[in-house]
């Protein structure tokens, strides 16, 4: 008795399998096999950091460009030089070395340095809070602490530190796809080079108000005093002052760390401890590295 259903279902399955096989063969799309090879070498996270729709999109673009003779403009930030080199070998093309980048948060407004004087009671998104007011701290340029950047990170490289109220970026996991930079309505996160031996220095503030006004709500603000500009060695001159805000040009900076020591509000951070100057008075090295434990 059970034989009949078994045969029936088996027959249906067999016919379906044949139909599928024939359809797959008939509607098969011919694709350049190189695209598959290139796609395999890419990380496969589909983060969009390259500017193309997913890793497959980039693979197609690379193969197209390779046929034209130059794949220079295309790069995969998460894959980095390793991926691009491997791809170059597969396609038989030369690939230029690209500098590894990392996302850097440029705000020092922790709960301690910039106490919250207001309470935000709306939808918990930075893009929305940004339209309501300057922020719970009062700084119109400061981090709003609602984590749009953390939400959008596809690589788990960010988390919100409850103690400070600021997001933390793990440079080991960050692939520099740029999603957090785009998500921040105040442009507080900047893509900077990782630096030789992971040594990098940056101004941890984007506030453009006059020093006295900025200090009213944040003790870690850049007050535009210019001491760092003067301290930067003459041959380097990596720091410029504009709109009451100092900026360190990463292309020129040699990561000596001298500016870190002279900043009166400790608004300049570095990933290393800057060497203390020779004179007796030992300044406590307070340039706290931004990397979490």
């Amino acid at each position, binding site marked *: 008795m059970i034989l009949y259903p078994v045969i029936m279902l088996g027959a249906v399955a067999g016919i379906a399998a044949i139909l599928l096989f024939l359809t797959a063969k008939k509607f098969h799309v011919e694709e350049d096999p190189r695209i598959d090879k290139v796609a395999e070498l890419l990380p496969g996270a589909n983060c969009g950091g390259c500017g193309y729709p997913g890793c497959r999109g980039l693979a197609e673009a690379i193969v197209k460009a390779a046929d034209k003779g130059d794949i220079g403009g295309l790069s995969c930030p998460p894959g980095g030089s390793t991926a691009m080199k491997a791809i170059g070998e597969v396609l038989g093309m030369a690939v230029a070395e690209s500098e590894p980048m990392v996302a850097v948060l440029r705000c020092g407004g922790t709960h301690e340095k910039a106490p919250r004087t207001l*309470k935000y*009671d709306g939808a918990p998104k930075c893009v929305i809070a940004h339209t309501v007011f*300057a922020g719970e701290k009062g700084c119109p340029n400061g981090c709003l602490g609602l984590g749009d950047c953390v939400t959008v990170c596809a690589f788990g490289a960010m988390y919100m530190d409850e103690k400070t109220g600021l997001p933390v970026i793990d440079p080991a996991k960050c692939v520099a796809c740029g999603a957090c930079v785009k998500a921040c309505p105040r442009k507080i996160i900047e893509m900077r080079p990782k630096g030789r031996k992971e040594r990098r220095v940056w101004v941890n503030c984007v506030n453009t108000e006059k020093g006295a006004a900025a200090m009213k709500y944040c003790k870690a603000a850049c007050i535009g005093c210019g001491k760092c500009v003067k301290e930067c060695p003459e041959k380097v001159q990596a720091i410029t002052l504009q709109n009451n805000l100092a900026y360190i040009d990463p292309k020129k900076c040699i990561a000596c760390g001298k500016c870190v020591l002279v900043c009166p509000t400790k608004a300049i951070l570095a990933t290393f401890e800057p060497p203390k100057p020779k004179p007796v008075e030992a300044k406590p090295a307070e340039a706290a590295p931004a990397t979490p434990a």
Partner: protein
Amino acid sequence: MDLKTFKIGGVHPPENKLSAGAPIEAAALPKRAFIHLGQHLGAPAKPIVQKGDKVRVGTLIGAGEGFISAAVHSSVSGTVFAIDAVVDASGYKRPAVIIDVEGDEWEPTIDRSPELKKDISLDKKAIVDRLKEAGIVGLGGATFPAHVKYMVPEGKKVDTLIINAVECEPYLTSDHRVMLERADEVLVGTRILMTALGVERAVIGIEANKPDAIEILSRKAKDHPGITVQALKVQYPQGAEKQLIKAILNREVPSGKLPLDVGCVVNNVGTTVAVYEAVQKNKPLFERIVTLTGKKLPRKANFLVRVGTPITQLIDACGGAPEGTAKFINGGPMMGKAMVNTDIPVTKGTSGVILVDEADARRNAPGACIRCAKCVAACPMGLEPYLIEKQAEYALWEDAEKEDAADCMECGCCQFTCPAARPLLDNIRLAKTTVMRIRRERSKK
């Protein structure tokens, strides 16, 4: 009373017109006035004074920049202390002229006599110029420069002027008091605007919860041919421009178009008094009625305030902020802006200040959307708020554009009525601004 109303959507928040019985009183002059240069829609005015200049009440201190802009006049007499960025209702610092107040000396060109001047001697063009010189903007809250409204482009036909005396926002009563105490000026001002527009018909729309205002204006309007009063059903947002036009004239302004495209112009009733004073008494716009109210506020009041007066001063005049006040609203509870502090000065657009207690101020914790469709039923523009909120959450901007997110007038009916207390309007605003930005970028290409 034959009540008219708009057809789609709307809610009925508790009216709380606690200050309706308080007659208008002049607020004390501030010691230092912070007069913002961007008190209107459009480009902020350019300051034409500098530190140390002496000014009188009514002196021009900011000149309008560009087509949509307005002049700004000093509301006090004294010396200019500085031109600096001061926090305004937006929560950010904006440029303002800061004046140390000395005495109360007015520009001699202003006619301060109290007699009612009924006859209109200026013609259409002269009136519009006068509106521009006097810095008249809509006092309903949107602060659109008035003279621009009356520059009707070639080819557009206008047949009606609508005066918006609805005041549908809860708590606010400044328009109500203006109608009760300055009805004659309202009517002359309306006639001036009718002349400026070149129409024979004006309708004053008033919500049915102000029967005394309806009575007094209906009675006095008999002396002014062409002006009628229309009572309207108490429903929010009856005072929204498009809804008001639908209720009174049964015409719907299409998406993206202006009232001019359906043959009418709408102005707030407070603006008519400002127009009267500007045209008949040569007085520029530098003061307005501001309602001070709140459930626990010791004294509710309707003040006649000079722009630039810090709001703290007004709150102190009412007995100070009560214990437990957690929110200060600039405007009405449905569309107003929560203030970051009370030092914010009064501007031409400040219709009222509401002090809210902690329990009322804190939003309820949002829950899951139960798909009850109350937001859809409540939306006066016929949109689907629950859908646009979801699209904003998932950044589906093209879909939001198809759902007409750009037509949202941010009235707040959806969020008010949502049982799950979802932040609908917060997200819809995000969708609306993103869609408009995308459209601008698209048209630039």
